[in-house]
């Protein structure tokens, strides 16, 4: 009986330790961002917002943040259109080999992202196009379209085909059925995929590594270059901003379109 209790205690203790291992490092970032000394002091000696001032006053960080937001926005739009249309084609198109097509659409998630970046970089070199912004967006689309395909397919597989049939039987044209029945029904899946696309693009490192042009880098690349030489609170503030932005997108869309009932993560 005693060993039972000890076993139960150990089981819970190990799980608490693993949870702490997962979450404490993220907490440390917040401590570091608010800590007044340039090197992390533990326990913290006070609270300051000066690192946030420094971050928002830095032209280098600001242009990186703006570029990241721009790339993430463009990627979200392009990936949502490409991914949602692909999912519709797979689920409703009656095309042969839909399993294979699905696997192909998801394949960029299966390969090391750094190779996606390398292969695109080599292609751009052979095409002699330099490192344009659209090239970076294309790279980000490759690793975000799969998320949109996956979430849209999930909704399409779960929805009642009789709703479409009912609309058709009541005399609606295929176009009207599509715009007034199908599209509103798959909207939650498309939006959930779009949110994934935004976050994956905003935090993207390995694909960007080869594709950003020097002097015009995204936030993760700028953070990485900064980390190579410096470890002060500015980097903590930049990290907090990027965590909060990602969280804000998720919460904001949850509030506006009510993801919770649709998205099973």
């Amino acid at each position, binding site marked *: 009986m005693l060993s039972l209790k000890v076993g139960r205690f150990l089981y819970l203790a190990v799980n608490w330790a693993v949870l702490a291992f997962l979450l404490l490092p993220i907490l440390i970032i917040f401590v570091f961002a608010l800590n007044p000394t340039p090197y*992390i002091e533990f326990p913290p000696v006070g609270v300051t917002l000066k690192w946030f001032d420094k971050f928002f006053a830095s032209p280098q960080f600001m242009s990186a943040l703006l570029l990241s937001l721009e790339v993430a926005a463009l990627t979200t739009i392009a990936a949502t259109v490409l991914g949602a*249309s692909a999912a519709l084609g797979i689920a409703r198109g009656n*095309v042969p080999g839909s399993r294979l097509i699905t696997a192909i659409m998801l394949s960029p998630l*299966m390969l090391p992202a750094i190779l996606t970046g390398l*292969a695109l970089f080599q292609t751009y070199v052979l095409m002699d196009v330099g490192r344009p912004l659209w090239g970076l967006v294309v790279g980000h689309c490759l690793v975000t379209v799969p998320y949109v395909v996956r979430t849209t397919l999930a909704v399409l597989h779960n929805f009642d085909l009789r709703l479409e049939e009912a609309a058709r039987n009541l005399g609606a044209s295929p176009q009207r059925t599509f715009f007034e029945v199908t599209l509103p029904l798959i909207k939650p899946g498309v939006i959930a995929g779009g949110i994934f696309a935004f976050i994956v693009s905003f935090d993207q490192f390995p694909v960007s590594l080869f594709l950003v042009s020097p002097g015009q880098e995204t936030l*993760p690349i700028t953070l990485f270059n900064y980390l190579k030489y410096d470890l002060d609170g500015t980097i903590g503030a930049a990290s907090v901003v990027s965590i909060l932005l990602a969280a804000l997108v998720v919460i904001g869309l949850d509030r506006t379109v009510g993801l919770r009932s649709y998205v099973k993560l």
Partner: protein
Amino acid sequence: MSRASARLGAPRLGANVMGLALLPSALFFALFFFLPIGLMAVMSFLTGNPVVMPNVVATTRHYERILDDPYYFEVMWTTVRIGLYTTVAALLLGYPLAHLMARVKSRSLHALLLMAVLMPMLTGIVVRTFAWMAILSDKGVANQILQALGFAPMQLMYNEFGIVLGLVHIYLPFMILTLTGVIGRIDERLEQAAQNLGASPLKAFCEVTLPLSVPGILAGSLLVFALAISAYVTPILMGGFQIMTLPILIYQQISANFNIGFAAALGMVLLVLSMVLVLAYNHILAAVSGQRDLA
């Protein structure tokens, strides 16, 4: 007549129009994914860039260089070793939490645990690596605590230990989610039956649940290993530019040497290795979901 045929034809026409919706993405993937990967394969067998150089010929010298020079073997072995350590550590840490998540009765507790696992996944890898640098650096949190307790400071990063710890943190959620899926499919009553027949909870777990979860262990391990060997940020920052892995070597060939052909050959090695691992992962998970009713 024409009306009837129009009505009969309409659904099929609709389906064909929907099939056309595949075109943009199919074109996009062909042009920007499969063509570039194919070009990478071709470049790995060429002596240079055929667009700007007139006398480019086919060669296997890039692959010969990888095989002949022991330095590259050393780099591969370091990469694989770091991948193995990361996988074993992620398995040992991830299994208990995956088991708890698969067995917890309360829905809200399950949602909380899921959020705790997903939260790190939504944080960028550069940001998470920075967190570990703040903890493990010479003047970091860990060393300040050690010193406050009267111990000598330790070198916790700029070595493989630091790299592995950072990688485990980044890829642990993938292990947990894979394992939770498989453990959740094992009928809990099997374990209860073993206990009713007199086995201790530990024995019941070791002889019932653990063997049934082996596919999850394999799949999760393959996934984490494949992710760990293709990591760039964490090995370079936590290793303090001291430790060379395959992805670091690939980037160096582009950024410092601009040797596109050799980078392509190294890329092909990583590509083939990852594809084997990922195919095995998919195969195992497909087998598990196929025999769902048996377990």
